[in-house]
């Protein structure tokens, strides 16, 4: 019988700070059955558009459905991979270029499960979670709605 995991709050306002990520890593030092961590960080890229460079992304979401979908992705990943723990954080609101908007952190006994789960989880997030992004472009306050490829 799989243990059930409580739904966790995924959305954090604004950018995810490097300090928050460092603190998350430090919290795992007491879990000595872990032998491997895999971390994926999504960072805002300064893409060049006709109107200028992207300066940031303003994220919005259908939050109730998104939190539920994140929960389903977590449960699915726990059932597919031999993981000890999993944390997912995603920004909501404005994240400037160069800052972190997605933090996926999986831990397992050995490397293979962590590598595979992190890729799987990120791909699931990209295609299934109702999050929307407005790419802010150039100095004049123009924007383009982003679409995952």
């Amino acid at each position, binding site marked *: 019988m799989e243990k059930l995991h409580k739904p966790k709050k995924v959305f954090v306002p604004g950018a995810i700070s490097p300090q928050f990520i460092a603190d998350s890593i430090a919290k795992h030092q007491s879990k000595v059955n872990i032998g491997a961590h895999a971390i994926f960080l999504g960072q805002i890229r300064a893409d060049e558009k006709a109107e200028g460079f992207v300066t940031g992304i303003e994220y919005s979401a259908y939050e109730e459905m998104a939190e539920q979908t994140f929960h389903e992705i977590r449960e699915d990943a726990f059932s597919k991979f031999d993981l000890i723990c999993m944390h997912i954080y995603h920004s909501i609101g404005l994240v400037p270029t160069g800052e972190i908007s*997605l933090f996926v952190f999986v831990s397992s006994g050995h490397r293979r499960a962590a590598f595979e789960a992190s890729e799987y989880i990120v791909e699931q997030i990209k295609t299934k979670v109702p*999050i*929307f992004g407005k790419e802010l472009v150039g100095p004049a306050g123009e924007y383009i*709605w982003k679409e*995952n490829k």
Partner: protein
Amino acid sequence: MSINVLYFGMLAEISGQAKESLSGKENMTVSDLKELLNEKYPQMRGKKFKVAVNQKIGDDATIIPLSSEIALLPPFAGG
């Protein structure tokens, strides 16, 4: 019957609001709703979006039950 429609992203811009209550009919499908919205907001025609019925993605044939929460979801951009 009334249905509550939530708009997100560019669809909220087109409709000029985040949500509204529309009057629908019994056994209305997602396809019927799209037609109604295209009439009301001509700029929505041709836009790519998914329709969630009570937080589950539906297809054109999905029936919209009484007092459902409908969400119009433009392409996802998380990550």
